[in-house]
């Protein structure tokens, strides 16, 4: 579904922040993306949600080479991707309902369908009672759930989350990870960028490990090794 081949990325005339990245994400895969600070996680995420285009190599997404896709085609690809940002990036002047409704409005869905879908998804993330609340009066966990609801409402084929549990307490973090696993079971491919070793060990999915712009794919850790480590 998604294939990166010998991808490199540099900003302007600076050094390459990503060097020769090659990996494939199959439909329904669940991967953690990890690595030390400055390893290039955010840059790789930007390539995945097409906020950046590679300076070399090829990126295939949903059967299209994004490096040669037209602007309109890239917009269509983006509509199949849901993104959860570390800092949530909710629009402060919109209610939780309207924030969640954004992707469907962009897709041009009918108001009646948007209303039903938003109600359903906000119930799913446990925010049915906060539909009309603006982000400023929601807690960090609630805002994160609104951001997740917004990312998944368009039924994306790929969900990207950047440190989705970084600012949350453990209980809320685990609850949100469970939501991602539910989505993954429904066929959504998921990539979560995180530093949280405990979380990665607990949910134990393959890891894309970035270090100094280079990527290594690690399979899930065997359960015995995990037990020994803890």
């Amino acid at each position, binding site marked *: 579904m998604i294939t990166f081949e010998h991808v490199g990325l540099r900003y302007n005339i600076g050094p390459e922040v990503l060097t020769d990245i090659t990996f494939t994400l199959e439909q329904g895969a669940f991967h953690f993306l990890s690595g030390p600070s400055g390893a290039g996680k955010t840059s790789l995420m930007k390539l995945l949600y097409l*906020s950046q285009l590679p300076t070399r190599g090829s990126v295939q997404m949903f059967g299209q080479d994004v490096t040669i896709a037209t602007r309109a085609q890239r917009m269509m690809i983006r509509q199949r991707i849901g*993104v959860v940002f570390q800092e949530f990036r909710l629009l402060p*002047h919109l209610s939780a309902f309207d924030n969640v409704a954004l992707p469907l409005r962009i897709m041009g869905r009918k108001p009646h369908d948007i209303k039903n879908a938003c109600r359903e998804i906000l119930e799913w993330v446990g925010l049915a009672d906060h539909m009309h609340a603006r982000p400023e009066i929601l807690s960090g966990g609630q805002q994160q759930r609104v951001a997740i609801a917004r990312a998944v409402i368009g039924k994306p084929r790929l969900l990207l989350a950047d440190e989705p549990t970084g600012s949350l307490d453990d209980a809320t973090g685990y609850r949100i990870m469970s939501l991602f696993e539910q989505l993954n079971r429904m066929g959504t491919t998921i990539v979560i960028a995180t530093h949280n070793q405990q979380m990665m060990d607990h949910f134990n999915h393959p890891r894309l490990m970035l270090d100094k712009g280079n990527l290594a794919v690690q399979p899930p850790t065997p359960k015995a090794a995990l037990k020994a480590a803890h």
Partner: protein
Amino acid sequence: MATKKPADLALEKDDVGTKFVTLVVIMMTALATLAMGGALVVHSLRASWVGEVSGHMTIEIPVTAADGTVRETESLGIIAEQMRDALSKDIDIDSVRLMSRSDVEKLVQPWLGDVAGTADLPLPALIAVRLKHPNDAQAIGEIAQTVKRVDPVATSETHQAWLADLKRFSLVLLMAALLMAAATIACSILSVTGAVKARLAAHHADIDLLHVMGATDNYIGGQFVRLVVKNVGRAALIGTVAGMIALKTGGLVAGELQAAMLPAFRWDFTALLWFAVCPALVTGLSLLAARFTVLRTLAVMP
């Protein structure tokens, strides 16, 4: 449940910017309306001047005869009457009027001062002729021949040179007024473009977010266009009404001061149509400018 779809971008939140642009558009549209009103007055003035002069001819029977002798007032009168009779028979002439001595005295008054009562002063005889076909050069030529037949030293003047100068002058005034209207409209559009650019910069992160969600440039551009149509349209309408009120007030004051010099401004359908064009033009061009600015800026975003 929300019934009205809110704008994705909080573009209306920028109160100071909105007020400033609104004020600029109101002022500029009011000025453009005044300039347009000025253009209409000049146009009407030109039509009235041209209407008064065009189609008229003046025949002058000079005091000095061909042999250099000064003719008596009485003999001039006889020649003038002969001239009038000859011209009256011409089928291309609508009317012939022999100007009285007092009419001629009034005409020379600006140059010679008050000459009323100075019967000794030799003054030429003048005949005002109204033509049936003002632009018929052949008819005018034939009239000139008739004039020369009656009195070889008499001259006929169609005022074409003066009329041409007048037309040129009024055209310059008209162009200046329209140029001023265009300049004020352009200022208005430039301020809208500046405001749009400022908002694009201020909402860059939110626009980037909409892009990430797959929003097309047209979708985002539409939000700016809706805002421009709403705010600029309203401001342009207010400005036009303000300009019309100023024009009406100015017209009343000018009418009281010097009614004879300027023709009264006519609030007819044409004038109202021109004034309606003003806000429509400002709004339409601002919309296009805003859309162009937004799309050009978005095109360089990933």
